[in-house]
């Protein structure tokens, strides 16, 4: 037993002498495209804003202060909690959460369906899922706008069929934003869930049925717990980009209900922006996401430690 565990941990030594040089490209790319931009944003968030966009290299906590406190129009009143941005964050989390839920509700059955097709046809189904994503996100979001507007094909069809008497107001609603996010990120849900359902041993479903479990119980007690890592991965992959998205909120929500993504985008656009404030908002968003992931990872580690 111990020997088995040890052997699974042993790493092949074949490439040991060249491992470091082979890893150089990876480190360069991660450093250049991931670490450097984040550090830059971190630095910007502690600088002073330049009025025509950009920053003055002078340390300041103004950006964070602006995010959290309201000091009146001229900044001379006693500080109160500034609710505007907190509300935007909460609203964004709710929107991203609903979009993730929609993706899960549609994505899980889709992934399950594909994983249970004959092996030969699976790659075709997977290909079909990704086909819409060969088109640019902007184009897709704009098409969605045309589809669901008041005199768009969806409303026209429903009116024509006599299902409704007046066009449903879909465009410029929260639901439209959720729909847009759902459409943007659905494959990120389908693919990881597919990967774990595909590895699932369906003899386990038979065993559960044999032991008096009905379909619902099989799903809840056997399939879902076993494919959970795929579901969690899918949810993270959908939730995190949804949280910072700005295309769908701008185009489908009519920029009426501001979300984090749009808020940050505004700060870096044109001359009206406030770079340090945008950077600070980004850092707060990043911290929240990282804290959530960290808590999840800790719980997972504890769970698997229990298992062993």
């Amino acid at each position, binding site marked *: 037993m111990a020997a088995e565990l040890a052997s699974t941990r042993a790493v092949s030594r074949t490439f040991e002498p060249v491992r470091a040089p082979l890893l150089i490209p990876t480190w360069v790319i991660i450093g250049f495209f991931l670490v450097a931009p984040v550090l830059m944003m971190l630095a910007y968030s502690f600088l002073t804003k330049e009025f025509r966009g950009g920053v003055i290299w002078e340390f300041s906590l103004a950006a964070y202060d602006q995010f959290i406190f309201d000091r009146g129009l001229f900044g001379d009143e006693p500080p109160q909690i500034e609710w505007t941005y907190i509300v935007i964050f909460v609203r964004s989390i709710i929107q991203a959460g609903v979009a993730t839920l929609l993706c899960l509700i549609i994505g899980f059955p889709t992934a399950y369906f594909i994983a249970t097709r004959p092996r030969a046809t699976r790659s075709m189904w997977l290909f079909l899922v990704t086909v819409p994503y060969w088109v640019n996100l902007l184009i897709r979001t704009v098409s969605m706008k045309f589809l669901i507007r008041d005199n768009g094909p969806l409303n026209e069809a429903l009116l024509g069929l006599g299902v409704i008497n007046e066009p449903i107001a879909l465009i410029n609603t929260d639901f439209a934003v959720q729909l847009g996010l759902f459409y943007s990120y659905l494959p990120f849900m389908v693919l990881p869930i597919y990967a774990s359902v595909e590895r699932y041993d369906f*003899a386990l479903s038979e065993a559960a*049925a044999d032991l008096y479990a009905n379909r619902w119980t099989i799903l809840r007690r056997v399939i879902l717990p076993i494919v959970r890592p795929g579901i969690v991965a899918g949810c993270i992959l959908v939730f995190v980009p949804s949280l910072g998205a700005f295309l769908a909120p701008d185009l489908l929500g009519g920029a009426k209900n501001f979300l984090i993504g749009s808020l940050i985008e505004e700060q870096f656009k044109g001359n009206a922006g406030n770079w340090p404030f945008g950077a600070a908002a980004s850092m707060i968003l990043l911290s929240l996401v990282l804290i959530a992931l960290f808590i999840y990872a800790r719980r997972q580690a504890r769970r698997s430690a229990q298992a062993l």
Partner: protein
Amino acid sequence: MAEGNIAIDVRNAVKRFGAVTALAGASLTIRDNEFFTLLGPSGCGKTTLLRLIAGFEEITEGEILLYGEDIGALPPNRRPINTVFQHYALFPHMTVAENVAFGMRRLRWSKADIEDQTGRILDLVKLGDLAARRPAQLSGGQQQRVALARAMAPGPKVLLLDEPLSALDLKLRQAMRIELKQIQKETGITFVFVTHDQEEALTMSDRIAVMSAGEIRQVGTPREIYEAPVDRFVADFIGETNVLDVTVHRGPEGVWTCRLPGGAAFPCQTGRPPQDGAAAHVLIRPERLSLVSEAACENGMTGVIDQAVYLGTDIQYGVRLDGGPALLVRAQNAGESAEPFRPGDRVGLAIAPGAARLLID
């Protein structure tokens, strides 16, 4: 419980997968309390029949009765039958105890009852101290016991076992045979056991059904199947055997005589009387033949030893008869001094009384 009580009655069961017929009209009755084995080569339909009984496959034609009740339309979760799967199919995210409790939970047993029964069953399969482990932390043999415990815990009327020992190594497999048989006797559950291993079938079963190409060829006790196979397939599949082409002749007082092409003749047993003078096959097991000196041979079966293979407990000789076929003869290894026969020697063959059986195809 009466001996003759019927647990499972399969009536003319047919299963087709598209154009492929996996089971072509199988009928059999399995008695209460019985260790019943479905034996056959892979693809013979034995697993299909098991899956029909479990409810994993829908029957195409015919019916399956459990204690007189037609269960053909019931899904697996409504049948009081449990299965031990070939690769165990243990729930990897649950502990051993949770695996064992799974069926009882679904049947809404009380917490105390579940705990009691889990403890009792785990003790029965000698896994009491591993209740908190996960399947991945167990050896193959231990996983096999968990699968058995999990299937027995809810107290099924019938337990189905789908080649449960095939993934274990030889030593463990032999030990588990005895243990399985013991557990079956102790619990009184009807076992339906699927295997392709004839030795397994012979050592464990009360009765065996030999299957081939979607059909049941013979049902009987291990002794009946081994000593009185109904056809050449059964004879060949169960154990090593000599099959000889002969002509049959009616002798005095209803005794039948087999005559080999070379002229040798010996009496034989038959269930169904053949036609006088007909060509037939006769079956003689190698261990029912013995080597004698040529002079002492009474039936005219004489020949030369081709080869002698040392098998440990036995020595197997190949003997080529004069003007006729080759036969295998198995003699117990009685030590070096008692080994007078060597390849090249001329010998005669003696057949144990009743050992030659006529096969009618």
